C-alpha cells in the first residue's frame, strides 16, 4: 500500500498527488515514471514522476482524468492509498549542456516536462518554456515552470491567457536560436513540433505515451516504431529522438482498446460512488 499524503486539484480534471514511496523517491531521475494499480481489480497504468522528496520518502504525480483509471484515481485524496506503485521505470532524460533549450509542455505534458526542464537549467542551459492549454483555467504549474526556466511563454487556443494559438506558433518565432527542443504533450502536438524542427535539424526529443502493462520490457505491448526499428517505450524510452518516431503507428496503437475503454468509463460514470467506496473498503482491510 502506498498512502496518499497530499492531493491538490491543479485545474479541472488535473490533480496532483504526493504519495509515500520511499524506495522510488530515493532513486527517481527526471524523465522516469511509475506504474500504478489502484486496487486489485484495476489495470496497470504509467504515470510520470513530477518530483520526489527522498527525505520525506514521497513522490509527486500529476494526473489528468481521461478514462476510468485516471478518473477513479482523481476521486481519491489524502488518507487514501494506492495498492501498487512500481518504479522508477524508463531511462532518465539525457541531460547535456546543449546551449539554448526550448521545453514545450502541452496539457498534462507540462508536469512531465517540468523535472527535465529543471535538470536542463541546473546543467547550465538557457531554458525557454512554452506552455500550451486549450484555455486559461486548464493551464497548470505555471509558477513552477517559471522557476525551472529562464523565460516562459503561454499559448492558449482561445487567447484567454498569453498568446493565442498553438505552441508551434511560438516555437517558430524562437526556432532560430534553439539548440535543443523537448516536447511533451498530445501526440499531434509532438508530431507538429517534430515537423517544425526537422528542416533545421535541431535535436528534438519527445516522450511517448504508448500503452503499457508491466513497464519492465516483459510484454512488448509498448513497442513504438523508431527509424526502422521496433523499440519498447518502457525500457528504451519513454524519450526518443522526435525525428525518428513514427507518430502514425503510435496513434494507431493507442487506439487499440478504445471500445473497451469507453465501456469502462461509461460504467464508471454511473457507479462513481461505489467504485470509490470499493477502493476505500479494500484499503481499510489491509
Amino acid at each position, binding site marked *: 500500500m502506498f498512502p496518499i499524503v497530499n492531493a491538490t486539484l491543479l485545474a479541472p480534471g488535473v490533480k496532483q498527488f504526493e504519495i509515500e514511496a520511499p524506495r*522510488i523517491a530515493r532513486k527517481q531521475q527526471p524523465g522516469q515514471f511509475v506504474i500504478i494499480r489502484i486496487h486489485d481489480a484495476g489495470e496497470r497504468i504509467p504515470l510520470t514522476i513530477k518530483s520526489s522528496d527522498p527525505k520525506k520518502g514521497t513522490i509527486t504525480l500529476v494526473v489528468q482524468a481521461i478514462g476510468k483509471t485516471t478518473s477513479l484515481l482523481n476521486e481519491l485524496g489524502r488518507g487514501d492509498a494506492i495498492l501498487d506503485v512500481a518504479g522508477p521505470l524508463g531511462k532518465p532524460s539525457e541531460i547535456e549542456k546543449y546551449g539554448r533549450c526550448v521545453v514545450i509542455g502541452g496539457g498534462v505534458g507540462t508536469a512531465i516536462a517540468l523535472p527535465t526542464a529543471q535538470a536542463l537549467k541546473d546543467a547550465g542551459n538557457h531554458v525557454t518554456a512554452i506552455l500550451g492549454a486549450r484555455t486559461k483555467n486548464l493551464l497548470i504549474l505555471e509558477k513552477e515552470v517559471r522557476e525551472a526556466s529562464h523565460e516562459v511563454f503561454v499559448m492558449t487556443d482561445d487567447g484567454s491567457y498569453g498568446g493565442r494559438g498553438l505552441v508551434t506558433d511560438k516555437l517558430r518565432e524562437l526556432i532560430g536560436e534553439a539548440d535543443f527542443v523537448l516536447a511533451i504533450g498530445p501526440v499531434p502536438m509532438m508530431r507538429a513540433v517534430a515537423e517544425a524542427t526537422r528542416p533545421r535539424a535541431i535535436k528534438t526529443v519527445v516522450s511517448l505515451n504508448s500503452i503499457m502493462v*508491466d513497464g519492465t520490457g516483459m510484454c*512488448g*505491448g509498448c513497442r513504438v516504431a523508431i527509424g526502422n526499428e521496433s523499440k519498447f517505450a518502457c525500457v528504451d524510452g519513454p524519450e526518443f529522438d522526435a525525428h525518428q518516431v513514427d507518430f502514425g503507428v503510435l496513434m494507431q*496503437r493507442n487506439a487499440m482498446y478504445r471500445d*473497451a475503454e469507453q465501456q469502462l468509463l461509461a460504467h464508471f460514470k454511473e457507479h462513481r460512488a461505489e467504485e470509490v467506496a470499493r477502493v476505500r473498503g479494500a484499503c481499510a482491510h489491509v
Partner: protein
Amino acid sequence: MSNTIPNKERMKLPRQHMPEIAADVRARNFEEVNLGFEANAAIIESLRCLACKTPTCTRSCPVGVDVKEFLARIIDKDYLGAAAVIRRDNALPAITGRVCPQEDQCEGDCLVAKRNESVAIGHLERFVADYERKTGQIGIPENAPSTAKKVAIVGSGPAGLSAAGDLVQQGHKVRVFEALHELGGVLVYGIPEFRLPKDIVRQEVDVLRKRGVEFETNVIVGKTVTVDELLGEEGYDAVFVATGAGLPQFLGVPGENLNGVYSANEFLTRVNLMRAYRFPDYDEPVYDCRGKDVVVVGGGNTAMDAVRTARRLGARNAYLVYRRGEEEMPARKEEVKHAKEEGIEFRMLTNPVELIGDERGWLTGVRCVRMELGEPGADGRRKPVPVAGSEFVIDASLVIVAVGTSANPLVQSTTPDLKTTKKNYIEADPETLRTSKKGVFAGGDIVTGGATVILAMGAGRKAAKGIGEYLSSGAWPLTVNG
C-alpha cells in the same frame, strides 16, 4: 509394502484415466481441465509400478524424486507420507505434478512403458500434493535457529520460491523482491488458470510466509534498488538472482506493429495476471476474440497456452502455426492432446512471412509459407526450409507470437561485475550457483534460458545449499571468472 500383484499382471493393468472437463465445455471457460484422481484410482495406478531395483523414473526426474517410495505410500493410503517423500526433493509437487513434461522425464523412462503405458507419475504426484493441500496439512518443517544472516532473493518464480523455503529453514532471514504485483513468476503471469489454478501458487506462497519468508512486490531490482545496494546499505549477506527469461522475441517480419499483434507474454499477462478474461469486472482489456480468427505462432507450451486461451475467449477459429512438424513440437504431449480436443487447428510446417493489415492499421491476415524438413542443423534437429512458391494467407484479426523469450536484463545491466554469456544470461557455477560476483548467486531460467519449472525449482534448492555453505564458511572460490 502391500503390492502383492505379480509383476506380469501389473504390466497388464491399464493406465487410470484422468477425469477431465468435456472438451466442448472447457473450451469456453477457464476452469482447470484435469479434475484429479480419486483415491481409488490413485491406488490402482500406484499398483501398476514394478518397484524397480534401479528405478529409471527417479534417474530421469531432474531432481530425483523417489517415485517408487511415494507410490508405495499411496498403496498404503499414507498420502501425507507420500507427500513427505516427494518434498524431500521437490518443494512444489502440486505444481510440478501438473506441469512437468513427464513424458520426457520420469514417465518417459518408466519400465512399464516398454509393454504398456507408463505409470501416471505426474497425476499421482498431483494427487498426493492436492490431498495435502485440501486437508490443510502441508508439512511445515522447523526452521534452524537464527543465523542472523540476511539473504535477498530477486524474482518470485519457482527458482526464487524454492530457494526461499530452504534458506529460511537454514535459519537465515529471507526477503524476496518481485517486480510485478503478484508472486509466482511465470506460474502466475504465464501458465493459465485452466492448467494451473492460481490458488495453488498463492497457497505455496502463504506457506512460505508462515515459515518466515518476507515478500516485497513492486521492486524492480536494477531500478528500484540495485544488487550493490542490497549487499551494501541494505545489509544483505547474499543475493540470489532468479529473474527468469521473460523478454519476448518477435518474428522480425513486416507488419508486427499492426493492432492485433501480441507477444504471448503480453496476451497471457493481460489474461492471467490482470484477469482480462473477466473484463469488465477487472479493468485490464484484452483484444476481444469473440467470433474472430486467431493465429498463434510457435510450438512450445507458451504457444499452446496462448492458443487455448484465445479459444476460451471465444475465438471462432484458433490456429497453431509451427514451422516444424508435430513430432518436433516441444510442448507437453498432454497439452497437444487437449488443444486438439478443444478444436485448435494445427498448421504444421508453416511459417509466417508477413502480417497483413488494413488501412487503419488493424491486422487482417497472416501470409505464410509452407516448410519442409531439410538436413539436421547444429542442434541435431532437422532444419525447416521454405518451399518455394507455396505462400498462402490465413485470414486472422489477432496473431500471437510465441517463438521464445530471452534473458531479463535489468539486473545484469546494473551490476557490471556480474559475468554474462553472449546472450546476456548470467554465468553461474553449475553446482553451487555462485556467479562471478562475491555473494551473488543465480539460477533458473536466467542462467539456463527458458527451461522448465522443475529445473528452476532444482536450481533454487541448489542455490540455497550453495548460499548456506558460503554464509557459514565465507569462502568464495572462483569458478566463474569475472
